[in-house]
């Protein structure tokens, strides 16, 4: 194992996809960066999500779409990124809903084609006549979460960045109103600036230094089957599910109700998954009747971080940059890392207006915001 770093110009707390992308962007600017994580890179939501990367609602959308097709090359390591998505439906109301989503995207300049049943069946051989149709996004895509996270980590190494696993941040040391170091059981890492990308338990670090960071945790679950024959576009979902066919052929899908589980400074215990996997299996079998005979071989659960309005927080307070993407952080990671780099280095995002993602919007947030939403654990 490498030596414990005594200092770094920027310390990033959290080796999830947000923290790692931020660190990689900082290192690309020649900044000396140390990433610490209480566990292993990508071990929380970042390594166990649906891999979707098509977030039209985000101010980072254009940057997300610009970067993904280049990520394998930029990182030098594979992400398994695949372009485009298809969303199919068996329910007329849902089909109409997605057609409307498609029209919004088209109006934004991102083309979406409507598919009738025959077209959908031709593009998605695992479905059948029960599919009423769908939409074909000529943008967006999906990637392999754990592989992508590791690729960020390796790319960061190649630029001289350091990663310390199994090293929780226990506190942020301050002097003169600035953070001067990150405390860990192995000692303090001195720094000029810190990025807190610690997922749902970030508030445990931030509250003691006077930053209220409202985020709460829930469990989301996915199932995966043995491989099916590869479809031309693997990013197919619908019928109440999100997910993808992996490049190996496995069908990996999630969706449905979640359980609010709350967090502790040590993180939330998300595992194991629940019998919800039976309702997931049903919906995959309905969506892909021609794959209904395939074996389910695994399930897993992950923790999703949610802010009160479900929107990201990207902000800087003094020399502390705080970041959470509120449940859609995987796909946006190439862009969120870029924005965080800009906040740390320049104090403002260079490529998008992200003002509405700041902490200021929570100034009047009620202390019982979780209860008010039915989100209490």
């Amino acid at each position, binding site marked *: 194992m490498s030596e414990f770093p005594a200092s770094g110009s920027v310390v990033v707390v959290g080796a999830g996809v947000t923290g790692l992308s931020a660190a990689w962007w900082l290192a690309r600017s020649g900044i000396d960066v140390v990433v610490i994580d209480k566990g*292993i890179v990508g071990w929380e939501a970042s390594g166990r999500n649906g891999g979707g990367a098509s977030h*039209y609602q*985000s101010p980072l959308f254009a940057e997300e779409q610009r970067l993904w097709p280049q990520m394998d090359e930029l990182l030098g390591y594979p992400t398994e990124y695949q372009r485009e998505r298809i969303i199919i439906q068996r329910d007329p109301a849902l089909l109409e809903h997605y057609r409307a989503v498609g029209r919004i995207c088209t109006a934004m300049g991102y083309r979406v084609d409507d598919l009738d049943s025959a077209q959908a069946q031709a593009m998605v051989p695992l479905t059948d006549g029960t599919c009423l149709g769908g939409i074909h996004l000529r943008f967006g895509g999906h990637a392999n979460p754990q592989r992508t996270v*590791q690729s960020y980590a390796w790319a960061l190494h190649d630029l001289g960045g350091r990663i310390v696993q199994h090293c929780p941040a226990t506190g942020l040391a301050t002097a003169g109103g600035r953070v001067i170091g990150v405390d860990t059981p192995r000692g303090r890492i001195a720094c000029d600036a810190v990025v807190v990308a610690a997922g749902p338990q970030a508030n445990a670090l931030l509250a003691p230094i006077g930053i209220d960071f409202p985020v709460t945790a829930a469990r989301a679950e996915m199932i995966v089957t*043995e491989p099916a024959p590869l479809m031309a576009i693997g990013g197919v979902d619908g019928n109440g599910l999100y997910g993808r066919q992996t490049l190996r052929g496995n069908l990996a899908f999630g969706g449905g*109700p979640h359980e609010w589980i709350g967090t502790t400074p040590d993180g939330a215990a998300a595992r194991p998954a629940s019998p919800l996997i039976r309702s997931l*299996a049903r919906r995959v079998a309905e969506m892909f009747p021609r794959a209904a005979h395939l*074996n389910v071989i695994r399930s897993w659960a992950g923790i999703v971080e949610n802010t009160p309005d479900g929107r990201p927080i990207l902000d800087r307070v003094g020399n502390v940059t705080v970041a959470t993407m509120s449940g859609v952080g995987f796909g946006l990671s190439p862009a969120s890392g870029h924005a965080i780099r800009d906040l740390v280095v320049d104090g403002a995002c260079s490529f998008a207006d992200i003002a509405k993602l700041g902490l200021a919007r929570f100034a009047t947030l009620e202390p019982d915001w979780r209860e*008010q939403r039915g*989100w209490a654990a």
Partner: protein
Amino acid sequence: MTVDIHDLTGKFAPPETRYDIVIVGAGAAGTAAAIAAAHGGLGVLLVDENPVPPGMMGTDVPLYYGGRMTAAAANPGRMVEAIFAANPQLEVAFDAGVEVLLGTCAWGLYRNGPAMKTLPEPMLGLADATRAWMVGYGALIVATGARDVVLGFPGWDRPGVMGAQAFHALLTRYAALATRRMLIFGSDSLALETALLAHRHGIDVAGIVEVADAVRGPSGLLAHVTTAGIAVLTGTVIVRADGGIDGVERAVLRRDGVDITIDCDTICLAIGTEPATELLDASGPVDATIRLVGDCALPGGSAAAGWSRAIAAIAPPETIVCQCEDVTRADLIGVQPPRYLDRSVAIAARSLATLGHDGPVDPDQIKRLTRAGMGACQGRRCRTQVACLLADASGTAVAPATYRAPVRPIPLKLLADWDEPAAMATGWDVWFGIPTQWTPYDTIGTADEHAPGLGGGNMHV
């Protein structure tokens, strides 16, 4: 209080049936426990996955059958008869009022805990050839036995390489073993007893092979083996198994640098066992309502580390470690991605050693990166060897990768809950159903922000 309609709370149906005691595994220990409980006046369910569907046997679930079953294994009626013939106590259990379900596997155990509070009660997921369902229990007895610890070597993916537990099951429980002439690897009691059992059944035992310099089992047993005329080769390792479309035809062994070829149709791996507790492993710590009996309550143990090292010393790096995902030893130790991905110069330079810079090796991390253990057999065939190889290469102790439910491969349409409560469907959303999450950024704070239509539920991540 506001209710989040997408919250899982209250959406699970209670178990379909509830028993005072549910027992998983109808071997000697499980059947005895069932009979005792029924005599005590309790309502008892005894399930056993045998007879295992032929397709599952083909992927070596739950045991390493190695394709050496006869055509009889594809005849469920015949298999059920064989099971009753092999375990007369099952009749006794029936007569005592135990509900006995054969061909029924337990694939998931669910209990509330720190991370889950929404279950109406503890539940066990069961499945047979036609459906899956949940049962409740007052007490759960796990009597799932032991599984073979198996290792790969060149040719181990040929039919005819099998585990000792599977050998015993096919021979004595199913009477469906196709072996005529076999080699046995390993030399502790399991291996010696396997040799004697085979011998009694008229199978030609061509030899017992042990990598160590001495036999590991008790001398009394060894004496019986020697008396039976069975050769024992110590200080000997497998070079490869050769064969044709019907599987293994001969084994090439190496002893003191000299290769020895032995004709055989079966190589039986009897190097050790581990408790078959994946149901519990995937569920969390055992609580006061759960008891383990029989072989699954024993620690197991194996000579896998020594075998793995000896094989790795002579087998080429291209030797397949994970059969399902085609992962070689070199890929595993190099932490290389699967072959269908391009290997950049940068990634080719990565290895277990470079990964170790960031912290200790984690078997589940390596699993996800290399895919070793991610296949249809759910890691059963390779997990021990993967752990041995990672431990040797990293110089640290490495546990085998973990299990996940369903701990048996179950077809989507069988696992599916076709009768789920209405609340599950009405509360279903693709993601969290937080309307403001999907508001296009430009409209946030404008008059259009709360326009009806979009931004509601069922938006995609």
